[in-house]
């Protein structure tokens, strides 16, 4: 088909890929250097690598505790996203009830409202009004229901054939049972993609948990590492080494999960949600 010289295309793609990956390679190398070596040779070391930076960052930031906080925050958001998203998405796609049209308009409208407009009032309400500073609930609450997920789950359920639902209803199955035993198993692969895409959000989220948690023991790793970068790093023996060691710990779970499940990050699943 294409008369693009294939070799040129491949070379450009590979060079681009290497340029994209280099910062990650350099992050790992930098985290293993005993003192920052920013020479070109330092990027390809043959000796003198050490794990001291990991010990150093762990003595200043409770890595394990922060990872647990990140995990609880992410888990809470995922649970809320899937449970509320599936229920509302299914109702919007498959059930005829009063107010459905209004609710769907709401789903579309909410996606237009950017988070930054809600930042200040949510802070005032959640942190000052409800006293949820330094709590998991305070971190999770603004993200617990994801309207984009509702919209995407609705698309998943809409794509299932009508006959299936008619047959199940003829057999006398209740709506909840149809959702649980007929619809959900059929959308499972799409659901997995949605969960993986959702995972990245809270795991990497910085601004909101940064506002909510002042107490170090409650901070997710992204927040404690950011605080380390902006406050403490000047006093460390090898500040960049310690920062990069923390960065590797923060990046590893998301990157590992992504590589393990990369074939689920397929454009078609997402595309069905995006096309609307």
């Amino acid at each position, binding site marked *: 088909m294409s008369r693009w010289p294939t070799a040129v295309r491949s070379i450009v*793609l*590979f060079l681009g890929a290497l340029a994209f990956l280099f910062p990650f390679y350099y992050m790992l190398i930098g985290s293993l250097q005993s003192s920052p070596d920013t020479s070109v040779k330092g990027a390809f070391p043959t000796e003198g690598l050490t794990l001291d930076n990991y010990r150093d960052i762990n003595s200043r930031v409770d890595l394990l505790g922060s990872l647990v906080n990140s995990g609880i925050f992410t888990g809470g958001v995922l649970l809320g996203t899937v449970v509320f998203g599936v229920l509302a998405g299914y109702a919007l796609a498959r059930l005829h*009830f009063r107010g459905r049209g209004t609710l769907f308009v709401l789903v579309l409208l909410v996606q237009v409202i950017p988070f930054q407009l809600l930042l200040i009032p949510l802070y005032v309400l959640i942190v000052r009004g409800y006293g949820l500073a330094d709590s998991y609930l305070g971190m999770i609450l603004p993200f617990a229901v994801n309207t984009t997920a509702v919209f995407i789950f609705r698309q998943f359920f809409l794509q299932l054939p009508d006959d299936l639902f008619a047959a199940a209803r003829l057999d006398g199955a209740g*709506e909840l049972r149809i959702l649980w035993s007929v619809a959900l198993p059929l959308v499972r692969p799409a659901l997995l993609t949605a969960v993986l895409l959702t995972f990245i959000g809270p795991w990497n989220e910085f601004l909101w948990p940064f506002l909510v948690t002042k107490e170090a023991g409650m901070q997710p790793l992204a927040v404690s590492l950011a605080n380390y970068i902006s406050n403490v790093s000047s006093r460390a023996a090898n500040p960049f080494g310690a920062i990069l060691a923390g960065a590797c710990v923060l990046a590893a779970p998301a990157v590992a999960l992504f590589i393990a499940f*990369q074939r689920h990050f397929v454009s078609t699943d997402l595309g069905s949600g995006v*096309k609307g």
Partner: protein
Amino acid sequence: MAKGTVLGRHPVGMILAAPYAVYIAVIFAYPLGFAIWMSFHDYFFAAPGAIVDHPFAGLDNYRAVLSDPGVRQAFANIVVFLVINVPLTTGLALVLAVALDKVVHARTFLRVAFYVPYVTASVAVVGVWLFLFNSNGLVNTVLGPLAPDPSWLVNEHLAMPVIALFVTWKQLGFFILLYLAALQNVPRELYESAAVDGASAWNRFWSVTVPAVRPATALVVILALITGANLFTEPYLLTGGGGPNGASASPVLVMYQRGLQQGEPDFAAALGVLLVIGVLIVAYVNRRLIERD
């Protein structure tokens, strides 16, 4: 079968959708109204339990925001950001998606390479960009005498472009994914008839691919715009709080600094309202420009 006509055929749907509806009311609608109310009142943080008046302030907060030099600078910075980020993102994402779509070997490796910055936390990759772009970093070592002075992140002309470049690199994978999805829907006959007409590869790209993915382009531009309007982590960490001298401050960073650090939530609320109005206007203009026939 037609039971419960008042509540619809499946009243159970109301129960399934209720948690979502309640959540929207509490976490979106109420704070949204609160933000707008706050922006028209004299609002400040009081001691817990104290009952204080928040008198109506008319447009005072908006006047304060619009005449604030820091805010103006932040909006100007975002324009610089968008001018660099949006064309670079759309162009690179489309070209790479077209190339990736046709590639046969090492698909997995290439996909992972381009997506991995997107799945990684900003805070983590900011760490390595700090290492690369600080005055003694690898970038300056390689450039040698060509290294900018003052260095990238502390240079008021370069700090914002570096942030724009960082965000382009970070988000590109997601936009490649969107374009790959759009490319699956381009009818193959279009390419075949173009090939029959003897169109060159460049002509086929320009006259078939680009128009066919136009709806995706509209989406990519709007999402890139929203990313720019939401910019916070990068100026906060990469350039140490929007430095040098506010040359890389973003509106959301100013909202945080003025609203929460300096205790002027009413000012920050008005800034938020103006920011959103700005995004909506630019998004609307963009839609008209890209989706016109």
